[in-house]
């Protein structure tokens, strides 16, 4: 069963097409890795799902709910972390999470649990603006994980984390579908990381979806098209290069 489904979803800014008629199928209780170079349209797609921007054409459903009609119901199901950590710098980490907890109507204990989960318990009283980049990233993740939402949308969640932090967060994301019956949509520039985390992947380039499927299907597809299959990074780069050549936009 698909948790998120898009139908020719398109977003155009002026004369720039950020997302070009994509059809995504994100299955329930699986981790979907979103890959693509800078400006491919990954963040824009995620913003569309969250109602931060409106689609120019096409539509999408999240758990059979439609946007914009059921925007609030959709947002109740989603925990997210988009681009940069978003918080109130004048409040402590704990106070920031308390705001989300109250809006979502969760018990107070959920704040303690989320802080514990991302390893911020000892810094919970510190003002968020005084957090390091890694701590801000963890606070953003804690906000997304608060109350264990059925859908998680994470845009490059490991940015700014040290190798130990990256490993912790990766393990955490990996465990979410089994632990909390959670569907995760995660984007990352670290291709090796997506390979370790995701069950399914989608590759975007210039707003178009080049591939969607499992890791095995990607390898089969690459083999059939004469692309390298040794590791995901080589396959991904070759796929993007081939698409750019086809479009006459060699970089």
């Amino acid at each position, binding site marked *: 069963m698909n948790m998120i489904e898009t139908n020719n979803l398109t977003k155009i800014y002026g004369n720039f097409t950020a997302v070009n008629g994509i059809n995504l199928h994100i299955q329930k209780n699986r981790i979907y890795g979103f890959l693509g170079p800078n400006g491919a349209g990954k963040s824009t797609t995620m*913003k569309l799902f*969250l*109602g*931060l*921007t*409106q689609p120019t054409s096409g539509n999408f459903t999240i758990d059979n709910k439609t946007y914009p009609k059921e925007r*609030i*119901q959709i*947002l*109740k199901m*989603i925990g*997210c972390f*988009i681009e*940069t*950590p*978003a*918080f*109130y*710098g*004048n*409040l402590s980490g704990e*106070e920031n999470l*308390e*705001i*989300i907890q*109250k*809006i*979502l109507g969760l018990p107070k204990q959920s704040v303690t649990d989320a802080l514990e989960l991302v390893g911020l318990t000892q810094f919970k009283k510190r*003002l*968020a*603006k005084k957090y390091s980049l890694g701590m801000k990233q963890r606070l953003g993740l804690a*906000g997304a994980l608060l109350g264990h939402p059925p859908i998680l949308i994470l845009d490059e969640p490991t940015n700014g984390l040290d190798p130990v932090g990256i490993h912790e967060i990766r393990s955490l994301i990996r465990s979410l579908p089994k632990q909390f019956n959670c569907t995760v949509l995660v984007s990352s520039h670290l291709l090796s990381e997506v390979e370790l985390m995701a069950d399914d992947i989608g590759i975007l380039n210039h707003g178009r979806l080049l591939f969607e499927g499992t890791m095995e299907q990607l390898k089969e597809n690459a083999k059939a098209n004469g692309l390298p299959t040794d590791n995901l990074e080589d396959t991904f780069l070759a796929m993007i290069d081939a698409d750019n050549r086809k479009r006459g936009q060699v970089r």
Partner: protein
Amino acid sequence: MIFSLELKKLKRTGYMPAFLGGAVLAAAVPLLHMLVRSETFIVLPGEPLNILYDANWQMMTMLNILTIILCACIIYHTEYSDNGAQKMAVLPVCDNHIFGGKFMITVLALSGMLLFEIIILELCALHWFSDYQVQLTDLTKNFCFSLIASLPTIILMLLIASACQNMWVSLGIGVILVFTVSVFPKENLFLSLCPFNSPYQTLALVTEKGKEYIFLVTCIAETILLGIAAHKLEHVRRYFS
């Protein structure tokens, strides 16, 4: 709930001290005036409170409006400086409720400020005008009138602050509006109904012209219209972002 959350967001922002500072400064105007030039005023004919209003209200109102501008900038700078607004946009809460919460907080803070200023005016009248007696009805009427007259200014300034992510832009627009509107003739009813100009009016002045009901109804209508504009702005922002 949204009201208490909006209040919580204002922790450590200097919002309440700004209102308190504005109230003390504005209330100091009649006190200083009377301390320095009381003999000029006590010989004037008319109601003591009206004499005090005529002498001080323009300056007090300008300080009140500058405080509203400053606090509207603070309230939205808190939202935009660390992307807090983006987090709120992806939570199941209506954007209009957030704006409404901020409006209510500003109205309450200004109520406290106005009440403090009117009490100081009453105390000045009591102290310097020997035959003056405090009338609670007049005090309440003046307070309600000044508060309603300030509503369009509050909502317009919040609308400007919500539209500009850079605090200095909204602060600049607010200050330009204050000084632009201050040159408008106060006797012209149409111009006196404009936001940023309406708070300069006093109940005595408007009652004298017999236009108090038109004035109050127009101020409330302006507030409602600007509230609708704030609602539409959220849709436009989402469409173009």
